[in-house]
């Protein structure tokens, strides 16, 4: 197991290096690095100062080393728009996104797995067809449009819930959270629902497909022959057998939900990192773009790493084969 962890850690490190190189190439070498570091309003004297300070007159490989050094030191530069260190800016926006993402993924899993298992258990029932119809819809309808319809229905037409913002927040561990206040929860509900629908559809489909296949296996036939109740079969055997792919998907979906949060946050003006990156792209705030890219890549690689480890813990065959 330890060998497996070390191997995976090395792999994660390599990937992170490759991505840092690609980001460097994409933003520094293809784009104009001066634009990345200096505000367009800066005068000539400052420009030359920064060019020398950041070594933009050096050969490319030296520049890359410098880029890496600054990354490791956590120096992503300053945002032109907010005029504060980028790292600080992103970290201040991160809790809002994490809160939204967690609410969405948890909701989708807790609801989607039972629904999907039921649809797989009784594939021809009316309720199952309804569930699958809904899941196809949730899968097909673009997130941003669902968001619009949610706002139109619950905020504009019915006026039940607020259309945007985070609402009141309460402090926990020195960070403001919305889910701790009633007003914050009412603000959280619509965006979380919006973000959850796609995941919900996916969880339903995966759980259904898994259940359908597992129900046909000998395990279930023997369990039935042993006289176990259908409920025990579903909750003990089927759930355990379909758990492995679900855990993987849960992890991977968590990170892709972080990515989709970009859309939801923009629509509901939720002040997380997703909204920040869209604003930065339209205002050409490049230091923020670079930092966001690196941070999300880092999160992804960490999550993939953890999923791999969880996988190995759940399925001993994985350890033997890969390590």
């Amino acid at each position: 197991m330890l060998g497996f962890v070390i191997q995976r850690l090395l792999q994660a490190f390599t990937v992170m290096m490759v991505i840092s190189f690609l980001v460097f190439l994409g933003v520094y070498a293809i784009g104009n690095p001066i634009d990345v570091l200096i505000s367009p309003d800066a005068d000539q004297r400052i420009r030359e100062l920064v060019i020398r300070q950041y070594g933009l007159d050096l050969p490319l490989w030296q520049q890359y080393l410098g880029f890496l050094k600054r990354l490791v030191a956590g120096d992503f530069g300053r945002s032109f728009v907010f005029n504060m260190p980028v790292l600080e800016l992103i970290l201040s926006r991160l809790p809002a996104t994490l809160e939204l993402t967690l609410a969405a993924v948890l909701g989708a899993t807790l609801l989607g797995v039972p629904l999907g298992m039921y649809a797989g258990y009784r594939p021809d029932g009316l309720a199952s067809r309804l569930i699958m119809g809904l899941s196809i819809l949730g899968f097909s309808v673009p997130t941003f449009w669902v968001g619009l319809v949610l706002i139109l229905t619950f905020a504009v037409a019915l006026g039940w819930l607020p259309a945007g913002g985070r609402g009141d927040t309460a402090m926990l561990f020195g960070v403001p959270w919305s889910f701790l206040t009633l007003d914050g929860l009412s603000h959280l509900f619509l965006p979380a629902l919006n973000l959850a629908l796609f995941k919900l559809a996916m969880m339903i489909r995966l759980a259904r497909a898994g259940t359908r296949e597992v129900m046909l296996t000998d395990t279930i036939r023997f369990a039935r022959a042993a006289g176990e109740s259908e409920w025990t079969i579903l909750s003990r055997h089927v759930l355990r057998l379909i758990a492995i792919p679900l855990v993987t998907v849960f992890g991977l979906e968590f990170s892709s939900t972080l990515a989709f949060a970009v859309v939801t946050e923009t629509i509901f003006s939720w002040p997380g990192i997703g909204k920040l990156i869209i604003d930065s792209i339209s205002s050409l705030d490049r230091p923020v773009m670079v930092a966001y890219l690196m941070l999300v890549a880092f999160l992804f690689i960490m999550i993939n790493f953890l999923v791999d480890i969880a996988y190995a813990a759940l399925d001993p065959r994985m350890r033997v084969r890969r390590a």
Partner: protein
Amino acid sequence: MDHPFWRIWAEFRENRTAVVALAVVIVIALVALLAPLIAPQNPYDLAKLVLMDARRPPGYIGSNGYMHILGTDAQGRDLFSAIIYGLRISIQIGVLAGMVALTFGALLGTSAAYFGGRTEAFIMRIVDLQLSFPAILLALMLSALLGKGMMQLVAALVTAQYAYFARTAHGAASVERSKDYVEAALSTPLPAYIVVFRHILPNCLPPLIVVATVQIANSISLEATLSFLGLGLPPTEPSLGMLIANGFQYMMSGRYWISIYPGIALIVLIVAINLVGDQVRDQLNPRLKR
């Protein structure tokens, strides 16, 4: 009647939902193809737009003398025409991106399976890596880096999606590669690329076609999302996503139609494509065969 195509069609026909969905896809494709003949107005002809007609509700009879059955947008565009033309752009981009990604991905996947060894490990490692990143994030970053435009957008979509094709092609081709008929073909003096193109690739097509339908729907949805976020096409060629984005600011004041109708068109298209894809996938999945 024994041609494989007819057998597939006979099974396909049993699922009525899928048949309806296929009909919807065909009708939408035809409407988009014949857009200039069907649309009452050319939405890109700025000279034809009358600002007085802007933001009118569905059913309004404009100064041009005909009824705007779905209303007009903020520039006084007839929404019905704009949607038809928007569908055209969306489908164009979706199909183009899907086909390029299919070609590129299939080539990569089959060559990985053919060469084996380190080449295979290297290619598939990259593909797996890319699959672990969500397509939307890649497309978002690429279109931010490349700038606006049709080609930039297609490039971003292809980069975000080719990996799915590569994975599928690799899986199918690895199975074919180890079969006797391929070994037999390879032992003849035929050049390897002919064996790959004539023998291996055609047998990998069914799963690739399934992935292609899903990915075309995904490209269309992704394009709409990017355009909605202001990162897709330039505003001179409003795709469905941009129409929806333009209407968003008016929605709060109750002018719902500018966003809602293009959205419905988009969803009908995507859902129909996905339903067709679902049926084909179920038909090709041997594990569901009784």
